[in-house]
């Protein structure tokens, strides 16, 4: 009687196993990392370099300016005006959009017949092109021929110059962007609401908590992490507003909607001053970064569920 001896591969040590897992994980994220490196980090580094020079797309690199372009930005009244317009837009849009989206999410979270259609209807603008809807809304807002003014006139309200009145232009544009983006925010908040266990509400109900108390003491605290994501991403997105400005107002009337990214675009492609455009881009990058960090700090949640 003979005994067959099989060669057994030695087991991996924990360190080796960890290394192998890291390698596999790295392979999975490599495409995304490559994408980030090529289309995010490299342009940022290029912009940082260009911001130190006189640089135009056609003329190439000119004089080295060191921090001269940054000093120029600090003295540029249009830059400050554009920043103010951008901040106004963010402050008008983000709170209204988040509150509206939360309301819609609370309403549409109920599983009743036809609710899927309602959710789809609210979400539909999200999948449409921003340029297309901007052009359509600009036509709707037109002082003489627009649908909105026709409705106002039929109600006995005088016509409004939505896009040619410096007071009305930014709010009018903000309304359109909220309509466009609220569906996305609603879906994210809806997912957050679905993740909250019913047990909390049942327990609160037994304790006699009202609907409002349930919302205030259960829903909102447990939604804080999702809210943080929504607020940060919407703030970043709003700081970068460009397409509606470009398609609806071109920064007008009288610079009332000249948001910072449109101003950067003008310098890069209309005024042939890519160096200064890069400088402004870097400044905006740091502003957005700072605002996001502050938001993360303020809205940090200690509640786990």
């Amino acid at each position, binding site marked *: 009687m003979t005994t067959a001896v099989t060669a057994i591969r030695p087991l991996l040590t924990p360190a080796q196993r960890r290394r192998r897992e890291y390698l596999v994980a790295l392979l999975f994220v490599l495409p995304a990392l490559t994408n980030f490196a090529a289309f995010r980090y490299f342009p940022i580094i290029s912009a940082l370099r260009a911001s130190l020079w006189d640089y135009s*797309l056609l003329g190439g690199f000119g004089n080295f300016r060191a921090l001269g372009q940054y000093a120029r930005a600090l003295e540029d009244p249009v830059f400050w005006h554009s920043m103010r317009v951008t901040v106004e837009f963010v402050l008008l849009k983000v709170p209204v959009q988040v509150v509206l989206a939360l309301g819609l999410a609370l309403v549409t979270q109920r599983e009743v017949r036809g609710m899927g259609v309602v959710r789809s209807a609210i979400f539909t603008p999200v999948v449409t092109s921003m340029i297309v809807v901007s052009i359509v809304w600009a036509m709707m807002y037109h002082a003489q021929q627009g649908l909105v003014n026709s409705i106002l006139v039929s109600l006995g309200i005088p016509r409004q110059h939505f896009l040619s009145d410096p007071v009305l232009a930014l709010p009018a544009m903000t309304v359109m962007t909220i309509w466009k983006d609220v569906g996305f925010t609603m879906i994210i908040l809806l997912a957050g609401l679905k993740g909250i266990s019913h047990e909390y509400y049942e327990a609160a109900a037994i304790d006699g908590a009202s609907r409002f108390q349930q919302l205030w003491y259960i829903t909102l605290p447990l939604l804080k992490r999702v809210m943080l994501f929504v607020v940060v991403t919407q703030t970043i997105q709003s700081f970068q507003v460009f397409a509606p400005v470009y398609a609806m107002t071109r920064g007008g009337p009288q610079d009332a909607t000249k948001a910072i990214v449109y101003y950067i675009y003008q310098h890069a492609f*209309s005024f042939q001053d890519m160096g200064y455009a890069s400088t402004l881009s870097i400044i905006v990058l740091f502003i957005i970064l700072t605002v996001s960090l502050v938001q993360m700090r303020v809205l940090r949640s200690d509640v786990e569920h």
Partner: protein
Amino acid sequence: MMRRRLGSLSVLALICSLLLATTEHPALPAVLKAEAAPAPTPTPPRGKVTLRFIVNQNDEQIIAFKKILEAFQKSEGGKWANVDLALEAVPFAELFPKILTSVAVGAEMDLIQADGPVMKHYAFNRVLQPLGKYFTLRETRQWHPASLAEGSFRGQLYGPPIMQSCSMLMYNREFTDAAGIRPPTRLDESWTMPQALEAWKKTTRDLNGDGVPDIWGVRLGQGTTYADYETGIWRRSNGDKGSNTFKGVADDGITFRGYLDTPEAIEAMQFFQDLHLVHKVTPVEPIPNIFESKKAAFMVTPDNRVGAINRLYPDGSFKWGVTGIPYFKTQVCHTGSWHYGISVNTKKFNEALAFVKFAAGREGSRIWYNNVRQLPANLEIYNELPEYRAGGQQDLFFEGLTKVGVPRIQTPGYQEYFQFFLEMATNISTGANVKQEMEAAVRRIEAALRRYSGWNRQ
């Protein structure tokens, strides 16, 4: 490495051109000196060749390009039958950024529809190939001298012209007849601005009584923006011939203080603002195709409007007329128009050159005119066009071109100026303080154009 090599080559080319320029008669443009050296015959192509052509988004013009291509393919016994065009149509406001980025990134691009005032900018920045040596004296003489000058930079031809232009005041006869207005038919009897304003007031009509005109008195320029081509006329018109206001920019091409912001220029732009907000004869928010859709009685426009009307009303139901462009002190229309340019990026130069020669030649220009109906730059075809003879329907445009036409301001930074001017005029039309707006525009333009200092020195 490549960039450095290109840089070195361009410096070398610049030095060579400077050396050559010093040995030649300075007053004679290079295009006129090419007679001695006959242009090389383009090599016949073999396979299918598609030329990528960035063009202005305009229905009549795109139709014209396609018809010119058909004729080109049949020309010279079908020698160019395998050449095709891939037209990339871009809205006017986007044309320059599109060309700029395409060149900068080395994108495949063969032909460019280039706006006249920007030709010098393109030449200065080496966007276009110099073409002077490929055209004989006889060939260059077929074009209007102003077009030739506009398509040239430092005496070198960079782009043969597609057409010429001069804006007049077109009107809808249905509305002028209803208002009992008979606009002058002779250029020397043209209305002054106050006289034109009276006509615009009479033709502005609110038919349904909702407080908003259904027919506006006038649209001041093509498209829906206030570009320099038409809007830049007002300020220059309010200056005496030769004055700084009339010139619009200093001879150095980059100084605007004392030219764009003179009291006369400000007065003219105040009048422009009042047309919108005080007299309310033109809408603050522009209405697309307002004249063709019969919502405006008058329109300041070149005669390409005739092409659009012919296309939209083939039964001739739109009865139009033309009168001289109104003026303050000096009657002015801006001249110049589109040019063909061959990109420095092209790898199909022979085919591109052959197409440009054909398109800007007699046959191509005739096809263009048949579709677009704007003043030809090719002088040879005027004999075939009775509408430009005395008493013809479009004769005022030709008379205007020759008698009151001036090129737009000459600067290599025209594109930057164009953008600032557009913003300034738009802001003024919506109620901005005219003086402050124009002074701010001067500051911004001069800051942006500082880099061109010394551009026109040989």
